[in-house]
């Protein structure tokens, strides 16, 4: 992960990203196995071509998980994911390089002393074209700030 800020130092304009990588059937089949998603479009190039693409495409739900992975990795022990939204506008093809990036747009302080961060997120190809734009809201716990009953998430 590449980041120019931490949850504690988050300010508008802060960014973090997962780093360039690719994916293919090894990743997609594993996800199909746990999400019951053995859909031909994700399993073979011919079905992808029938659907109008150059070949098989990655599952939107797997891209969704990768975005959550990035948010969890950045939050570490300091917060939780409150919401995520993504649109899968362009296909992610097999072996294509991609990255997932997050940009902090707004930092809000709430009554508990915690911070709420509104982010723009996106899965983009190595040319910087956004294939899956989105948004996320993160709840960052401030030491001594969270009140009793505040939801606690997994701590990484």
């Amino acid at each position: 992960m590449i980041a120019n800020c931490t949850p504690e130092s988050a300010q508008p304009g802060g960014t973090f990203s997962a780093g360039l990588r690719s994916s293919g059937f090894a990743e997609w089949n594993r996800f199909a196995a746990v999400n019951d998603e053995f859909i031909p479009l994700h399993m073979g190039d011919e079905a992808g071509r029938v659907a109008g693409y150059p070949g098989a495409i990655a599952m939107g739900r797997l891209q969704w998980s990768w975005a959550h992975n990035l948010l969890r990795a950045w939050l570490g022990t300091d917060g939780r994911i409150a919401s995520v939204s993504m649109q899968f506008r362009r296909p992610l093809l097999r072996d294509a390089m991609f990255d997932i990036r997050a940009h902090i747009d707004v930092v809000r302080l709430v009554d508990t002393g915690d911070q709420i961060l509104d982010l723009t997120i996106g899965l983009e190809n190595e040319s910087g074209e956004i294939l899956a734009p989105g948004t996320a809201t993160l709840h960052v716990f401030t030491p001594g700030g969270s009140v009793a009953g505040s939801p606690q998430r997994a701590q990484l």
Partner: protein
Amino acid sequence: MPLLTEAMRAAVGSLIDWRVSYPVDESDIRRWALAVYYPSAPPAVFTDRASAEASGVEFVAPEEFNPFAWAVAECMRATASRRGDPDALECMLGLPPLAFTTQLNGGTSAQYGENIRVGEVIRAESRLTSYSERDGRVGRMLFSVTTATWTNQRGELVRTERATSIRY
């Protein structure tokens, strides 16, 4: 030629289905994490319950975890055999099939509430939120938005999720 019919418009707001998961197992969480982090190793908090809890960390599922994959304990109707079927939505709503050949995930939006923990039973209730249609590069496309509300066995809100499906 328009895809939307009066019957489809009238179905907006209708209950599509409900499902109740089997109790979430520690292995379900571990396998999910192994799959979504591959080829990296998942964080130990999703794979090693004992060490996570020994260090004061609660062992919970990743936020986006799906407890309904493959089989459910109870459901409003048997839909498992229609997984991936582009006409499944209309079938479940009692509408005539539209004979689509392709179904894509157009987008997902989720708000998270309570964590999903080992042993919990999750119920999801899905409703049709909207239908719309537009022209795309492959012809006329139908957009359907569904909203699912997930609760745990205590009735606490776990997730509210809107999913957009694109079919042509």
